[in-house]
C-alpha cells in the first residue's frame, strides 16, 4: 500500500497535492511562532517599520534585557510556578482518591455521587455566583484561593474514573486478600497501573494552570500575586498608559511589539519543554475522556 510505484498517475497527483496542502496548513500553524520569535529579536525601529517577516532584522536582544530586568516579570513567573505546581498537586490530591472511590462498584450511592460530579459538567452557576462565593470565602487576592478554587474538574475525575474502571476488579480483590487496605490498593496497585492516565490528568492540570488567565485576572487585584498570563496581558494592554516605559521606547532598541514578543517567547518556552509529553498523552487523554456515564 505504501509503495508509490503501484499508484496510478491520478493517485500520485492526489498524494502530492495533498502533501502540498498539508504543508501549507502546517506552515500557517508554525509561522506565527517564527514571526513572534523573530520580532522579539529585532530592533524596535525595524519592528515598528514592519520590516520583520521571517527572520530577525537588526538582531538584538535588547527586548529580552528589558523584559528580564523587570522584577514584575520575574515575580509573575514565580507566581505562575506556584499556581501551576501547587494547583496541580492539589488537583491530584483530590482527583485521584475521588476517582478511585467513584470507580468502585461496592460504593454505596455510586450512581448518585457520579451524577453529582457529572452534573457540574452540564450546569454551572456561572461567573457571578462563583465570584461572590470566592469573595464570601475570603479567597480573593490569595494564592490559596487560586490553588484550591480550581482544584477539581469533573472532566478529569471522569477520565480517571473510567480508566480505573477499566482495570479488572480482581486486582483490588487480590490485593485486599493479600491484606492491603483501600489506600494501599490505590497507592501500590491502581496508581502504578494507571500511570498513563495519571500522566494525562497531570498534564491537563499543568497546561490549564499555566495558561489560566481569566479567573486570575478577576480574583487577584494585588499585582504582587498575579501570574505570568495576567502580567503579559497588562503589558500588552497597558503599555500606552505606562509613561516611563513609553518614554523609554524612544531608545528604538526595543519597541512595544518586540517587548511583548519577548514576553510571549518567555512564557511559551516551558510549554514547549513539556510538549513532547503533552503530545504523547493528550491524544490518549481526549480519547479516554470521550467518556461514558
Amino acid at each position, binding site marked *: 500500500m505504501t509503495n508509490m510505484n503501484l499508484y496510478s498517475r491520478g493517485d500520485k497527483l492526489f498524494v502530492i497535492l495533498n502533501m502540498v496542502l498539508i504543508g501549507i496548513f502546517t506552515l500557517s500553524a508554525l509561522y506565527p511562532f517564527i514571526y513572534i520569535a523573530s520580532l522579539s529579536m529585532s530592533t524596535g525601529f525595524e519592528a515598528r517599520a514592519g520590516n520583520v517577516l521571517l527572520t530577525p532584522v537588526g538582531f538584538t536582544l535588547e527586548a529580552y534585557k528589558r523584559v528580564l530586568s523587570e522584577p514584575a516579570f520575574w515575580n509573575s513567573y514565580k507566581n505562575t510556578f506556584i499556581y501551576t505546581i501547587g494547583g496541580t498537586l492539589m488537583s491530584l490530591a483530590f482527583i485521584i482518591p475521588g476517582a478511585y472511590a467513584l470507580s468502585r462498584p461496592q460504593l454505596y450511592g455510586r450512581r448518585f455521587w457520579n451524577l453529582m460530579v457529572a452534573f457540574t459538567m452540564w450546569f454551572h452557576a456561572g461567573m457571578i455566583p462563583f465570584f461572590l462565593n470566592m469573595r464570601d470565602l475570603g479567597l480573593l487576592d490569595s494564592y490559596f484561593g487560586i490553588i484550591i478554587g480550581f482544584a477539581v474538574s469533573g472532566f478529569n475525575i471522569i477520565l480517571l474514573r473510567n480508566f480505573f474502571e477499566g482495570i*479488572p476488579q480482581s*486486582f483490588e480483590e487480590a490485593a*485486599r486478600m*493479600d*491484606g*492491603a487496605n483501600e489506600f*494501599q490498593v490505590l497507592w501500590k496497585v491502581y496508581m502504578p*497501573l494507571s500511570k498513563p492516565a495519571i500522566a494525562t490528568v497531570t498534564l491537563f492540570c499543568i497546561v490549564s494552570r499555566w495558561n489560566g488567565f481569566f479567573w486570575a485576572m478577576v480574583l487577584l487585584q494585588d499585582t504582587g500575586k498575579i501570574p505570568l498570563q495576567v502580567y503579559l496581558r497588562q503589558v500588552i494592554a497597558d503599555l500606552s498608559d505606562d509613561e516611563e516605559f513609553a518614554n523609554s521606547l524612544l531608545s528604538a532598541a526595543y519597541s512595544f511589539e518586540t517587548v511583548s514578543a519577548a514576553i510571549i517567547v518567555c512564557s511559551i518556552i516551558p510549554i514547549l519543554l513539556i510538549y513532547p509529553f503533552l503530545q504523547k498523552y493528550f491524544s490518549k487523554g481526549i480519547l479516554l475522556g470521550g467518556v461514558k456515564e
Partner: protein
Amino acid sequence: MSGVRLKGIEKAYGAVKVVHGIDLEVQEKEFVVLVGPSGCGKSTTLRMIAGLEEISGGDLTIDDRHVNRVAPKDRDVAMVFQNYALYPHLNVSENIAFGLRIRKESKENIAAAVEEVSGILGLTEYLERRPADLSGGQRQRVAMGRAIVRRPKVFLFDEPLSNLDAKLRTQMRAEIKRLHKRLGVTSIYVTHDQVEAMTLADRIVVMHDGRIEQIGTPMELFLNPINTFVAGFLGSPPMNMVKAKIAKGENGPVAEFEGQSIQLAAIPSLQNAVGRDVILGIRPEFVKVVAEDAPDCVKIELDLIETLGSEALIHATLSGQPFVIRTETVGQMHILNGFPGFTIEPNLIRVFDAKTGMTFPGQVIEQ
C-alpha cells in the same frame, strides 16, 4: 472441626436472590470442587467465603471461627483468580512477596518464603521477570505462589484454568493436584468444567440456580446422579436422555418407547411405577453395540461415526432424539458400520421421573 462450614449461606442483590441457602462442610485437607453452569452461584459462594462479597444470610465458619463479618485479609484464606490478577508493574518475586510486605513481615522472612515457594513451583529462574514476559502456565504458577506463600488455612480457586489452552489446562490440573497432595491445605475450587471437577475433587458439589443439587465423590456423582441435571452435567459426552413409559414386562419392569422396550432393574420403586412417564439416563459408555439383531437389542438409526483412534463416538437417533454411543474400536471396526443397535445391562440404566427429574430410589451402581 478444622475446615470450612457453610450453614444456610445466602446471597441477595436487593430482592434478587442468587444463592439460596448453601449447606456444606469442607473437611480439613479436603479438595472440594464447586461445579455448575455459569450463573449457578458457585463463584458468588466462593467470593462470600473469601470475604469479597458480603454474606446476606447464614453462617460461615472457618476453622471453627465465625467469620461472616471478618475482613478478607483476616480470614486466613488465599485466592487464585481467573485472570490471575498478577500485578503487572511488579516482577514475579515482588508479586509473590506482595502480601507479606503488606503485612510488614521482616525482609529475611520474605526472602526465605519467596525462595521456598518459587522452588516448589519451579519459578526460581523467573523471579526477576514481569508477568507480561511469562507464559500462561508460568503466570498460573505465580498466582498460586502468591496464594501459598502466606500459608493460609484455606485455598480458594476461582476458575483458575479457564484462560489456558486445552493442553496446558491438563498439565496444570495435574500440578494443582500434586501441590494439594504436598501441602495438604483445605481447598475450594470453582469451575464450570466438569472434567476439572471430576479429576481434581475429593468431593464435588454440583450447583444449579443458586442451590446445591448434589454433593459426593466424583464417581458417586457420575454413577448415581440424583437427578437429570447432575446426570446431564457430569460426563462427556453427556448422558443420553430417552423419554419412555414404564410397563410390566415378563422379568420385571420395562421401559417402552416408540414400539421398543428395554428391560429395567427389578427394584421395588420401579416395579411400583408402572404407567409412569420417565426419562432413561443412558451413559454413552455403558452400552454395548451388537453385530446382529437380537431380541434384547435396542434399535437405533445410525447417523455418523467419529473415529478417535482407540475409541469411536457413534452419533445415532433413538426415538427421534440424538443418541451418542462411546465404544472401543479395537476388534470391532468391522461391525461399527451398519450395526443395528445396542444392548445394556438393566442396572446401568438410570431412571428418572419425567415430571420431577428425580431418580427413583434404590438404584445404585457400585463403583
